[in-house]
């Protein structure tokens, strides 16, 4: 079961557990926007993690409302709504706004675990492939099959070159 925001019914992406003074716990579920509002209202020095991270992320996003991934086309706004990123490159594009969020979720900001054995492939080639695949989707959507076929060939030749 996915939780819905208790204020607007949108999909909830932030889940808050409040510990009341009598030691009871209260579970709250919010969409990104209502979580921000809730945290602003209840902001207290004790909730450093989320409370400070959220407005910062929001402010950064608001100052640049057009922030969009050139590879998969997702906007930061869309990510905030769904809670899901569009492609691996988003971590680069949204880096500044994601970092406070990652810190509030994980506490840490740097990967220290396992590293793939294979030498990481050329990022530019990978993002180019994602872009071409997105373009094929668009071409098929408008029934431009000639263009889709050309893009297909291009992807295949890039894959062979790897």
């Amino acid at each position: 079961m996915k939780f819905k925001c208790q204020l607007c019914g949108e999909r909830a992406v932030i889940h808050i557990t409040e510990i009341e003074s009598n030691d009871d716990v209260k579970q709250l579920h919010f969409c990104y926007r209502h979580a921000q509002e809730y945290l602003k209202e209840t902001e207290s020095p004790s909730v450093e993690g989320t409370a400070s991270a959220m407005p910062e992320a929001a402010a950064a996003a608001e100052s640049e409302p057009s922030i969009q991934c050139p590879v998969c086309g997702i906007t930061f706004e869309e990510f905030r709504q769904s809670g899901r990123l569009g492609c691996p490159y988003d971590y680069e594009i949204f880096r500044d706004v994601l970092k406070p969020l990652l810190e509030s979720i994980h506490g840490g900001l740097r990967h220290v675990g396992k590293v793939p054995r294979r030498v990481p492939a050329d990022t530019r080639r990978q993002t180019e492939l994602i872009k071409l695949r997105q373009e094929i989707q668009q071409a098929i959507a408008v029934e431009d099959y000639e263009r889709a076929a050309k893009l297909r060939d291009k992807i295949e030749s890039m894959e062979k070159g790897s």
Partner: protein
Amino acid sequence: MDLNDLATRNGEWLRGDGSEADIVISSRVRLARNLADFPFCSRGGELEKREIETQLRRTITEINAEKPLVFFDVGHLTSLDRQFLVERQLISREHASAEGSRSVAIAPEEDISLMVNEEDHLRLQVLHSGYSIRQCWETINKLDDAIEEKVSYAFSEEFGYLTACPTNVGTGMRASVMLHLPALAMTKQIDRVFRALQKIQLAVRGLYGEGSQASGDFYQISNNITLGKTEEEIISNIEVVVPTIVNYERTARRGLIKENKQTLHDRVSRAYGTLRSAQTISSEETMQLLSSVRMGVNLNLIEDVGIDLINDLFIHSQPAHLQKLEGKELEGEDRNVARASYLRRRLAEGRTNGEKRANIDPSAQ
């Protein structure tokens, strides 16, 4: 292997053996991985999903050539079969309800399941009965290495394995153990345990993961954090906590026996009696009563039924399993009647078997 064959067995997670198996039901590790040159699933079209499937299917088949996994095309299964795989812990509820091309590769022993096109392109899962979280990690790590040799995973030096949801980024790892904690629940100490776990960044979930109820007093404990900790640290953190909770549960059970044996004995016997005689019963009530009986058997308060049968009934009385075993679709009240009749029959058989055993070898009890 087809799904109807699976229905008659009780699967890996409720096999009921392994270390500390009276309390630790099962251990599981899952890894979230994505291919580097595709968009994440939510952004990918059907064409891309099919391409991801083809590529991963080829890879998975190649690396498991000696011990082949069995593929199921989840998108084309009936909703009953999908629910069935969820009940067996072989796919997630998200995978069952998602759309588009998606599949799962399962080992015949049901200890390995690889979901393709779930929230991430690939979700690897290794699950063992009992307390064996480290073994799960060792197995899954090797499997991950083997796949990694053939495909390029989305990875950044800074953020680690890149995942569709930022809550999984880094190691992409979720390590969890499923615990049966009826005495802590009965003595109302369970909330205190959970609060302590939250403080050390471990999450507590119900039987079927995120958002599910703690049905039958089963609780899953898992790491919240995936970025900034090594896989080893995540496993160790779980290893520190589990024996402590197991001890709490044992202490609570001892306390109940010492101070309230009569009440406890009455409670588990009534639960047993209801299961043996009910004419209609819901899945939720069955889980709750089986939970009491399971503890009763473990504490030797109920002696004419084996723990294997009780473990078996936990899974076989669930909606999709029951319908598979009955060989037909059953709705609402019909299902509850069928469940009650199934439980009566199995428990009656279990008792006769128990008595036969007792006749042959009186010391067996």
